[in-house]
């Protein structure tokens, strides 16, 4: 039973001629972790905004096709109710801090105040959220005193406590240093392991390879490939189009030509696969 169901979704931003999304089909089962990869301009952000309802309700423009999440139709829903269905976290952590609240605890509770959640329930959810994302020790800090990685985890927690059915992340670590990247991916991974449906646009293919159940490759607004990480990430079809290719994959691809990687072996995407292949290849 697909919790996310996009059928032939096409979208044009206002005052543009080109399609940002072109007949996109996407079905995601509950609990799946789907990574969206693609060069800049391929439509990753647009897809994320569509899932979160901002396309078309915030950006206007022309949307055709069907967007259904948790049995609700986007065309028949208001944005302020859709945000309960789908949570959105995007690149810039600083812009996701509302500035309306003095402490991280209050910041996280902000969404719940807007939804009229009773105070006891609110406190319970915020406490759970803080534990789930490992930021309990930041609860009394000002959101603006935090590092990028910490702020992003606060943003994530603020969305989580609203209990969306699907979590959409648009390149959540692209502005982060290595520590922040590790912190944020760690949290996302543990959420996915707990059964959250996660759809994440991401450049860092090494992380995608390790954590995603499925990879969707977008190119020029179309779904070019949709399958298991191993099938998509080392496919020749990604070459020459601006996709990020794992260094392990490209090195092994070149190594085949030089006889250093066995011809009939799948190209590696992770470090372990690369080690195994290169060691075995020379026996």
């Amino acid at each position, binding site marked *: 039973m697909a919790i996310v169901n996009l059928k032939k979704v096409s979208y044009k931003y206002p005052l543009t001629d080109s399609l940002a999304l072109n007949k996109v089909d996407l079905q995601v089962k509950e609990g799946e972790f789907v990574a969206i990869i693609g060069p800049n301009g391929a439509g990753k952000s647009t897809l994320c905004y569509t899932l979160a309802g901002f396309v078309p309700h915030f950006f206007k423009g022309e949307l055709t096709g069907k967007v259904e999440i948790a049995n609700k139709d986007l065309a028949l829903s208001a944005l302020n109710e859709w945000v309960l269905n789908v949570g959105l976290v995007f690149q810039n952590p600083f812009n996701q801090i509302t500035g309306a609240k003095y402490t991280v605890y209050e910041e996280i509770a902000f969404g719940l105040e807007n939804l009229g959640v009773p105070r006891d329930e609110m406190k319970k959810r915020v406490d759970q959220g803080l534990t789930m994302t490992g930021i309990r020790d930041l609860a009394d800090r000002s959101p603006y005193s935090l590092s990028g990685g910490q702020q992003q985890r606060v943003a994530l927690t603020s969305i989580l406590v609203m209990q969306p059915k699907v979590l959409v992340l648009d*390149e959540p670590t692209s502005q982060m240093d290595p520590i922040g990247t590790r912190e944020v991916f760690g949290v996302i991974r543990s959420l996915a392991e707990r059964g959250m449906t996660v759809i994440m646009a991401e450049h860092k293919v090494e992380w995608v390879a390790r954590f995603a159940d499925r990879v969707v490759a977008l190119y020029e607004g179309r779904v070019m490939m949709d399958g298991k990480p191993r099938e998509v990430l080392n496919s020749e079809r990604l070459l020459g189009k*601006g996709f990020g290719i794992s260094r392990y994959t490209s090195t092994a691809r070149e190594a085949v030509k030089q006889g250093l990687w066995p011809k009939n072996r799948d190209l590696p995407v992770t470090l372990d696969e690369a080690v195994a292949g290169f060691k075995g290849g020379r026996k």
Partner: protein
Amino acid sequence: MKIKVNDLRFTYPNGVEALRGISLKIESGEQVAMVGQNGSGKTTLVKHFNGLLRPTSGSVLIGELDTRNKKVTVAKLAQHVGYVFQNPDEQLFSRTVGDEVAFGPRNLGFDSQKAQKLVDEALALVELSDKKDTNPYDLSPTWRKMVALASIISMDTDVAILDEPTTGQDAANVARIAHVVAELKKRGKTVITITHDIDFCAENFERVIALSQGQILLDGPANKVLGREEILAQTYVDPPQLARLGKRLGLKKTVRNQDELLGALKKH
């Protein structure tokens, strides 16, 4: 243009001592990457190279120019040191890409013929020749980044500083940026970068300086520095992917890129 830093110390007005005794020399034409966790002092150090910051004690010499001298203004140092900031939207203001890229050269006093030539060359290098009359804000963030890069290249300075050039960029843009670095190297320019992208660092920079808490932890050739995992870990720097692969495969030397790895595997 040689850069000489001698026991540099710097304390911010709010009392934070960001640099605690840095000494180094960068020769003309070197490609140097500065790595280290946020707060280690990388940006603070590099801002001394174009006069945005002045030493609290110690000295910074850009060629013959001593930055302790107030008469050596930022505008004066801009003739020798170009600084590409991380966020292009914090510098773009012109109506067209051409005007934006011409801003630097014009400030440096180049005559219009020379300025135009530099502008055209810079635009060609970043693949934006056909967008000369476009408004920078009509371009995507990816291409705005290239406009920002071009506007410093056009200044034709001996030294170019790139502050986190690949953060948030897709693979295609990282490749373009790497191409620009290679071209600057060919032209004999000194390129200094601050970066968290250790793979980009390994593949494009011969010398790596690792900073931690305002001091230099490591300073040397990339394939020496990048192999010192435990020391780099102190400043939260991971080794590059291919170096890690090489190590797991038992290679003695730290490899910096695909060719070195495969070459070393053949001999192994």
